[in-house]
């Protein structure tokens, strides 16, 4: 996991555990297509902000929000509006 000094940004591997709580398939090696700019990045390589009320995942090309994940009181909320497509690979 890499910590980019500016803005406390982590890469997508930082939320591998959180994503495994939600999905049965491995998501960090899935390819996410940004609904804003169309850039395709492995989820493990996107920008992640965890020092916030939830987890915010942003496109490394245009910084648009790809996912917002909130966990609280036994519930999860997952907003994928900014991810046009998520390509998951069977292992």
């Amino acid at each position, binding site marked *: 996991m890499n910590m980019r000094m500016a*803005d*406390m940004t982590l890469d997508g591997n930082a939320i591998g555990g959180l994503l495994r709580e939600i999905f049965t398939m491995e998501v960090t090696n899935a390819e996410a297509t940004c609904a804003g700019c169309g850039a395709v990045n492995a989820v493990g390589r996107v920008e992640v*902000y965890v*020092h916030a*009320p939830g987890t*915010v995942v942003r496109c490394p090309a245009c910084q648009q929000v790809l996912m917002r994940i909130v966990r609280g009181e036994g519930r999860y909320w997952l907003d994928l509006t900014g991810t046009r497509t998520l390509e998951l690979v069977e292992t």
Partner: protein
Amino acid sequence: MGFISRGFRGKRRDTADSGRLPPGQYLVNDYPVLSAGPTPRPNLDTWTFSIEGEIDTPKKWTWQEFLALPAETVTKDIHCVTKWSKFDTTWKGVSFDTLFEGVETAAEYTTQFSDGDYTTNLPLEDLVDGKAWIVYEYNGEPLHPEHGGPARMLVPHLYFWKSAKWIRGVRLDKEQQPGFWETNGYNNYGDPWREQRYWGD
């Protein structure tokens, strides 16, 4: 012995303050930085603060005009939904009562919008009567970008995600429009004394 007693009484005083700590919160002395995206660094020569939406003549101030508005210094406790609270934070800025002077609107709700595309929603009545400010100084210093500078909201009676950093304006809405966190699990109102953290709280 005297020294130890004094320290002990000091701690007791903190405990006595627990009536100031909303349920589920713990007290911090530092000031944690929370951020959902890159820190914007707007050019103050082109920065503006706007009131728009359900208003006949939208209002807009430049940075210099904003600094020239009557300012207040207030000391408030703040409560973050991630469960930290900080007592006696001191801010300087302009109250919404000043900003809304002469504004007539049919709106009952507002959306705060910021650099970095953050938004949060508040009932209009929670911005007026000395409950909300746009602040640009913290502890006598210009507000640091990581804490929301050049200017942020201060709405201390609600969880602090309602106090948008890097504020650029307020839109007056007839209907409630859930914001960045409110559309994905967080409470539309966010009263820390009623622990309104999530949907349905």
